[in-house]
């Protein structure tokens, strides 16, 4: 079998999702028996314009980045968005809640007008180019990446779950965060993380984005039942780029 050529790229992000690839530890060595990494700036000095699969991390915050992404899209047969910054915009999208100029001055004060600080509305990858597969999460769960890669290796379409985190939360036998008077985004957030946060006694903050058809009506009604407001819910939703 010819090994698919894989390139890994990043845009505005913390590089934590790439780190999960490194964090596969011994398993990474197994992965490398089946794919040929041709570019991965964080880990390798090699560079290449010839690849089958592009794995792209990070969100798009400047026009020059959008152009670079379009180039990558042209070259890659398959483009995978890696992690919340790429799939949703992630925490970077918090910036979109503010006026751009004001954001710059808040951080850089009098230097804010420097051209290097040019910044645009944050976009997820699919808002700029077509994305073939999404690996959700902040950070991603390496198991999902290996699932997608294995699927691609045997020619099967990866099927991300279209059910909420509560499913995996139940399978993990957790106590529901609502029992502790917390707002958990689990009921409307796409599963796949094995309910990481609730399993660690913390609410789900929605880093994987909503399921296909979230019951927003229920979510708002349920807030009332728990003595919370829709505003409380919205503030939580915006954390990882769901607006």
């Amino acid at each position: 079998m010819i090994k698919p050529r894989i390139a890994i790229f990043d845009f505005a992000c913390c590089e934590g999702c790439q780190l999960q690839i490194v964090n596969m530890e011994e398993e990474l060595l197994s992965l490398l028996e089946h794919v040929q990494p041709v570019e991965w700036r964080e880990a390798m000095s090699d560079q290449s314009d010839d690849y089958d699969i592009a794995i792209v991390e990070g969100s798009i915050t400047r026009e020059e980045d959008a152009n670079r992404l379009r180039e990558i899209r042209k070259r890659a047969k398959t483009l995978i968005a890696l992690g919340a910054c790429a799939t949703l915009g992630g925490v970077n999208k918090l910036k979109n809640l503010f006026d751009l100029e004001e954001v710059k001055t808040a951080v850089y004060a009098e230097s804010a007008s420097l051209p290097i600080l040019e910044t645009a509305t944050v976009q997820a990858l699919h808002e700029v180019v077509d994305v073939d597969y999404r690996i959700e999460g902040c950070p991603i769960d390496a198991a999902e990446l290996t699932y997608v890669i294995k699927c691609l290796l045997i020619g099967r379409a990866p099927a991300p779950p279209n059910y909420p985190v509560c499913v995996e939360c139940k399978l993990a036998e957790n106590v529901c965060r609502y029992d502790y008077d917390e707002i958990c985004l689990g009921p409307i957030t796409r599963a796949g993380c094995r309910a990481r946060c609730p399993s660690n006694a913390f609410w789900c903050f929605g880093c994987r984005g909503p399921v296909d058809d979230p019951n927003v009506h229920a979510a708002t009604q349920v807030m009332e039942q728990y003595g919370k407001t829709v505003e409380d819910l919205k503030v939580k939703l915006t954390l990882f780029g769901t607006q």
Partner: protein
Amino acid sequence: MSTAAPTIKTKTIDINVRHVTRLEGHGNIVVRAKDGVIEKNEWQVPEAPRFFEAMVRGRSFEDIQTVVSRICGICSVTHSFGALKAIEDAMDIKVSAQTSMLRLLTHYGEQLESHALHVGYLVAPDLLNQKSVVPLAASHEDLVKTVVAIHRVGNLVMEKIGGRKTHPIRLLPGGFSMLPSEADLRELMHELEDTIPRLETLAAAIADLAGGLPSFERETEYVALVNPPTYPFYEGQIGSTDLNTPTPVADFESVVNEYMHPQSTAKWCKWHRESYAVGALARYNLNADYLQPLAAGAAHSFGLKKGVCNPFLNNVAQVVECFQVVERSLQLIDVLLSTGITQERPRVSPKAGVGVGAVEAPRGILFHKYEFDEDGICTRANLCIPTNQNHANIQLDFEAFVPQIIDRDQDEVRHLMEMLVRSYDPCISCSTHYLNVEFV
């Protein structure tokens, strides 16, 4: 390796490394020399600015560590701690001794993971003339497997205590959302014990190769947390090799002195000199007296003396610190197991205030400062990350180092400069303040 000044000055050099590889984040090296005359010699950082300080405004104190952890995947635990300590400072929250110990343990896990990653995956290929760890896995399989095993244990500590390898979940203002079981701690103890011989293997390999490191030295100021008689990562005051008394963390703004440099568009930091350095070497230079026995032994066998000022030796100091954190982790687990884990979950009520948190990231001291209103909503933030503090120092190293090597082959010059940058273990995606740069 010779660092004698060049004699033949006929060389033309044009180095333009866009995005130095094997580095967290994006950095450029631009060097232009004609007939031996250096025309341009710059370290630039084109990382897309992310504006975290602006973005956390309006967020509840409960969400801050979740957001700022995302500044950097590699030091997500440190950023969480920076935020938690600042929040606790602002709201007068006291944490239990158990919480402090568990936090410290998590923090050690991150140091181990990050140092193993940096030394083993990113720097080792330089020393072994490979382009990455991928071919190294074939040519030096045992060494790579040793590094992988050390790295895995660092991650395991973060996962078992913080809830995840990257972007910890359980770390909350006031304590932990969930505590490790005693079985978890015992598992960690065994894994950490097994790590010591692995570290010895790694140290021996690095000692063999360290001779290949350039013998470049430049005196500078080193800044790190100090807290005698400990080798601190998590608690302490700000120490400097240029100063006898430490500076309180609350005064960090008078330490970092962020300023605009006329020649560069980056915000730089300086204190008593034109630049200062933070990181493993800075910690070593300030706290070497308080190393644990195995760490001190490793330092000794490397011939690493307090006061050393060769930036390339930062990687050696990182190996020494790996021993340090493993030894200390084992001691902490011992204490925790002998007292037993007490179930506690923090209940924190917000209040208005300003707070500062300082912690040592693997790559140097880090400051977080926040202001909260009475509902615990963040109204202002100022974050100063280690790589920012090193930026001026890297530039000054360039200025001192390039004339020493300008007679070499262009490729060699480029390679040495990349190595110099890499030795700092810069973590540019952290850069909330990077302003740069001309794109050549």
